[in-house]
């Protein structure tokens, strides 16, 4: 298992502009989250992500999402909505992220807690710069991430507190 209580996995393609927002967001989080939280740049990988997903206790995924919203909108999914969302997301990779999640289930190694912070992209053209609305959305996305982390960490604390009182 991962040595980190929480794993944040950014996925996406840095050379396809807003497609890489998950990685940009991951980089924006550096130094802004507790040091015991694992930050992983999953890039465009397929099968090598399986180990990361299976090892995670609590997994927060950062990605560009097609949510039929205006560019730059930040969207959050929790729990069972996560695989449902990725299942509907078509992939041209050798293996889609939905399949990675399915494989983790098949191996009985699905994370106990899972969530996605997604940003609606404007352009997926070749390029390394984010579009304006997506770049401007990063601070809000950071706040979303921190809120989820707080909830997850408080659960941890409550659990520890309960254990102590026993």
């Amino acid at each position, binding site marked *: 298992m991962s040595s980190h209580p929480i794993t944040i996995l950014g996925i*996406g393609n840095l050379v396809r502009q807003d497609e890489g927002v998950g990685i940009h967001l991951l980089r924006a989080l550096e130094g802004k989250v507790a040091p015991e939280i694992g930050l992983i740049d999953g890039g465009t990988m397929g*099968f090598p992500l399986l180990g990361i997903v299976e090892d995670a206790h609590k997994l927060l995924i950062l990605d560009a999402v097609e949510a039929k919203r205006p560019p730059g909108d930040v969207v959050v999914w929790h729990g069972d909505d996560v695989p449902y969302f990725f299942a509907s997301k078509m992939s041209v990779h050798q293996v889609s992220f939905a399949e990675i999640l399915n494989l983790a289930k098949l191996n009985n190694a699905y994370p106990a807690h899972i969530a996605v912070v997604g940003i609606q992209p404007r352009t*997926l053209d070749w390029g390394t710069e984010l579009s304006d609305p997506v770049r401007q959305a990063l601070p809000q996305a950071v706040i979303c991430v921190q809120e989820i982390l707080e909830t997850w960490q408080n659960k941890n604390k409550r659990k520890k507190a309960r254990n102590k009182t026993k």
Partner: protein
Amino acid sequence: MAQRIVVDPVTRIEGHLRMEAQLEDKRLRNVVSSGTIFRGLEIILQGRDPRDAWAYAQRICGVCTHTHALASIRSVEDALGIDIPKNANIIRNIMAAAQDVHDHTVHFYHLHGLDWIDVASAASNAADPKEASAIAQSISDWSPNDAGYFAGIQEKIRGIINSGRLGVFTGYWGHPAYKLPPSVNLLAVAHYIEALDWQKEIVKIHAVFGGKNPHPNYVVGGVPCSINLHDSNVINMERLNLVAAKIAEAKRFVEKVYLPDIMAIAKVYADEGETWGKGVTNYMSFGDFPSENINHPDSFYVPRGIVLDGNMEDVRDLNLKDGSQIQEFITHAWYNYRGDKSSKTGLHPWDGQTTPDYDGPKPPYDELDPTKGYSWSKAPRWNGNAMEVGPLARCVIAYAKGDAETQEAVDDALQQLNLPLSALHSTLGRTLARALEAKQRVNLLEKLYNDLIANINTGDTSTFNKTKWDPESWDKECKGVGFCEAPRGSLGHWIKIKDKKIENYQAIVPTTWNSSPRTADGQQGAYEVAVQNTPMEVSDEPVELLRTIHSYDPCIACATHLLDPDGKELMTVKVK
């Protein structure tokens, strides 16, 4: 009556590929292979610091990040005249060999295997766990292999099928092209699941040397890790022991699971050996795994060469810097050269251009017109010939050059299958060559590891040559080529540097060779030729076509993965 078959996108590959063909008398003809996504990496790299190019190049693709980074740093080293330290060469070789083993095994079990293995049959009552156990024990001493284990696997598959969420196990089950006995299907699916766990381990080698995985770090001039056997923060004995352990695990898995499975499956499909998927039979390998220096091809563990028309008596040499040998053509691709859409000129990559010029039908379209542009893939040629690259090409060239390890492995396998050497030129041959290569790579990994330890023990801990790191030390203008043998075949990056910046950058990736469109003389690329005459029993279930295309391990290298949440179908098979 002829029907037009369209498969778009071809799934279980990296990237976005469309195949079209005419179905006549249950055979595929007039095949069209189209890369349907534009790759603009070359444009992104222009004007950047050459030392940073690898970080962008490795993002082209979701699979071969190591190989793109490696080709990129080698191109810069070639341009600047940098020799790397011995440790760096060995470590890069270890990373490349580990990538090959991971990639080949995952490709077989998780991407290509289900073209040969029927999951529904494995779940059926006809698949007997006791029989699967007996077969498993007869081909290997790998455990678990008892009947109870296979019964458990069968329960698991049934659970998935009954849940209605097949996911990765979606396929054309029951198709007549599936021929394995049900118990062998069960055995193979069990190993599909085991391979998922195993593949997580081998990639840890990349994390040791590259600092992290996925997307390990690279550096022009060497490798970005220091060696000190007694320091806990760098490459030390503890981490090297981890590498040794992962190599040993990989060797066991390849020798006791992957290869026995391949042979058991190949025996059943051996009659296809000479009839399916014979490609262009022109083979090319840039060569790789330098034992000494990248500039001495004679020192490569994987030899360089060209074989034309399957003639293994005559291996030719190739030169990546010769402007007349490797050229890319665009008459049937969506590009122009200097504004000329119909240019019949071939450009060597140093002078290559990436100017998109789409003249295809407006999407969504029913059919492509192969007399015009029909692909985002250019058409690379060697001395005017369409070439096949990849494990089979490397195998044919090594065999023809007299490499003893290759000859022994190939002869032994073909003898067991009762097939002649010519059977290599087929779908089955391609899949077999990949497995045999995985075995050679685990042996190479062991040797490389011992080489590394021996070299460190001489007191040499150098991993980085910094003499040309400062751009002030560079010539005003220079150019280079970086290459490697990626799992899927010969990969080349050509770079021109001017005033410390990238002036031009061109990559020819393995799949560009294999998926190439036609050239002006009508010569087709490797996929198009290989699918020609492939049988197709059921017109809306392209199992046979997928089997041949997957045997090349396509990697269209586009790596975009955001699309419609309404759930477009993963694959459309259109029959008209």
